[in-house]
């Protein structure tokens, strides 16, 4: 792989929320771009700190964000980056949380699962264990900044080495999901709209499933938030003719799993996206389906002009497709927090 076709960054936030980063610069970049890149770590980690701060009792972890990249016009060879992935490892111990976050832009689909495993099982534990051992050996003379610099270099080199190999097909047990919300987004040069559709705020099902996701508020802001961060990253790395579209966001909390899957279509310079908030579900639940079912349904809305309301009812008849919750203003988001994230009784 030609190194210059990569975007690669690794951040670590410690128990005091200090953030350390290691970014690979394959191209010449201006100082201005570099200063934007240096600020990216905090911006990418924002929602992770947010979930942590807001949900003391619920240890939700943002695992990964996958985005596809599309070109505005004919791209130059320098811009051949087709996939963008953010991978995170959050380690919780005695109410102390550390996060190791990585963003990877690459011309290939990449074996993301293997790279994520390296992050979770090797690079992150190596930092935690190394800190403990060094503190025991060196005491006050232990220089954490130097240590973390070395560990992040070690980590980013290991990730870089893993890039360029084809994505493997892993055998996994087929999982059924239940849909708890739909997000509809529209974007053009002078327009940006985003709506959430879910259960009626007084529906007991809303209360029942509220704990199966971090919160409706967080789920509503994540897609747009990370899409914007990825755009900033691409611009900072001089990739100006490509733009991202969120494909999947994966969150977990012990045995709970929440997924956000999205499909998009561009017509007349307007991008329209439909995303579903899914939770892992019991096989027996009659309204639960596999991932392909959900993706096909939203593709039908986009490609075959299937009626949105009808399709939402087919996906989950308890979701109200006629009542939309605005998600693109602080006031509207506060309303979501007040009415959807708080239990009705």
């Amino acid at each position, binding site marked *: 792989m030609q190194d210059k076709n990569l975007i690669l960054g690794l951040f670590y936030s410690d128990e005091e929320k200090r953030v350390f980063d290691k970014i690979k610069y394959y191209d010449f970049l201006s100082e201005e771009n570099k200063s934007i890149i240096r600020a990216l770590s905090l911006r990418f980690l924002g929602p992770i700190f947010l979930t942590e701060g807001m949900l003391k009792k619920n240890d939700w972890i943002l695992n990964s964000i996958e985005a596809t990249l599309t070109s505005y016009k004919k791209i130059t060879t320098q811009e051949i980056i087709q996939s963008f992935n953010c991978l995170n490892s959050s380690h919780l111990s005695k109410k102390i949380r550390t996060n190791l976050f990585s963003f990877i832009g690459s011309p290939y689909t990449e074996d993301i699962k293997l790279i994520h495993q390296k992050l979770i099982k090797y690079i992150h534990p190596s930092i935690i264990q*190394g800190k403990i051992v060094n503190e025991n050996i060196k005491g006050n003379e232990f220089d954490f900044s130097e240590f973390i610099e070395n560990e992040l270099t070690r980590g980013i*080199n290991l990730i870089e*080495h893993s890039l360029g190999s084809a994505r493997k097909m892993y055998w996994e047990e087929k999982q059924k999901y239940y849909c708890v919300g739909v997000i509809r987004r529209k974007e053009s040069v002078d327009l940006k709209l985003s709506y959430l559709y879910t259960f009626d705020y007084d529906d007991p099902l809303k209360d029942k499933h509220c704990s199966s996701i971090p919160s409706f508020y967080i789920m509503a802001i994540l897609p747009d938030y990370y899409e914007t961060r990825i755009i900033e990253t691409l611009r900072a790395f001089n990739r100006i003719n490509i733009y991202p579209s969120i494909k999947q966001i994966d969150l977990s909390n012990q045995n709970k799993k929440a997924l956000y899957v999205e499909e998009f279509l561009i017509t007349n310079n307007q991008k329209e996206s439909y995303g579903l908030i899914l939770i892992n579900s019991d096989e027996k639940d009659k309204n639960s389906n596999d991932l392909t079912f959900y993706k096909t349904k939203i593709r039908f809305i986009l490609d075959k002009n299937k009626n949105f309301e009808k399709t939402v009812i087919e996906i989950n008849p308890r979701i109200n497709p006629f009542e939309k919750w605005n998600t693109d203003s602080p006031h509207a988001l506060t309303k979501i927090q007040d009415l959807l994230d708080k239990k009705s009784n």
Partner: protein
Amino acid sequence: MLKNEFNRALKIDKERLQGYYERIKSQSSSLTPIQIIAKFLVNQSITPSTSEVIEVLDYYKSRILNGKDILDLAFEWIRAHHFRSEYKKHLIKEQYKDYNIAVDDCIFLFFLNYDEYIRKIFIEDIKEFELSALYQVFFSSFDKDPLKLNDILEEHKRKVLTIFDKDERINERINTNILTLRSGLSEIIKNDYNEISGTKTKTINNSTMKKRPIPIKPFIFDGTMIERLIKFYCFNKNKIQERELEMSVSQFLKSYFKSGFSYRFEEFKEILIRGLTDHIYSGLTEEIKDIRPLETLEFQLSNFLNQYESSIKEKDLDGSAWTNDLKIMLGTFLSEFINNLFE
């Protein structure tokens, strides 16, 4: 490493080994149990010296879990050697930029799982330095340096800690397995990497570096055609055409030797032996693998090449010249090997 790949890498023929052990036991009535096991391990080419093996078994016997015995530990030592050959196959195939990445990647892919596996046969109180020392013992070849357990233990005692969480009411041991693995294995992986990539600094003479181009990337011998040829032969037993054999050997040699580069025999001897035996072995059926273990195959090929070593040892030839010279030798070896495969 996927679970089934890991299980395959750990797999040894325990029944056959148990049979060997019983035979040695019946022939050595005057020896103590630990001496018998040591003799058994030496016969399995684990180390050259019985006293060194006894020292290791004697030290670790008190660290083994109740219900396990020193023979189990001996089998684990053999298993570790088998596992090492699997990890080295990976190291040969993979192209690492430097040994640091090789160390991290190999520990992640191979030894993290191995660590989880091997800890199960030891008591909970075993110290981390004892485990890192054990990794050094299990995964070193001790071809050149003798196995001095006390020195190894002392070295690891100084740098590998067993840490307990002092804040807990009950002292809970903190997991530091990655650092233990690194202490035990980093040097071994680094040496293997250097040996395989041919960049071992002590073997490179500065003056020769100036005179002849050294291949920058580590090359490997690719014997896919040989592997396929043997696989087909094992299944249908149809006579292999001389032309087919010649082409396979040629492909194997050309995958490594490049025209315009000069090579010395000692630079590639080990890689050639390992590359060819690995591919031959992969082509064999499971039944034949039991009769012809990888170690025997390596030994046979090494012996075969030794016949010619005196005449080719000092040669410094271009890649294409080596291809021509070795084509005949390896062709003869393979032809003999295939003809005797079912005898």
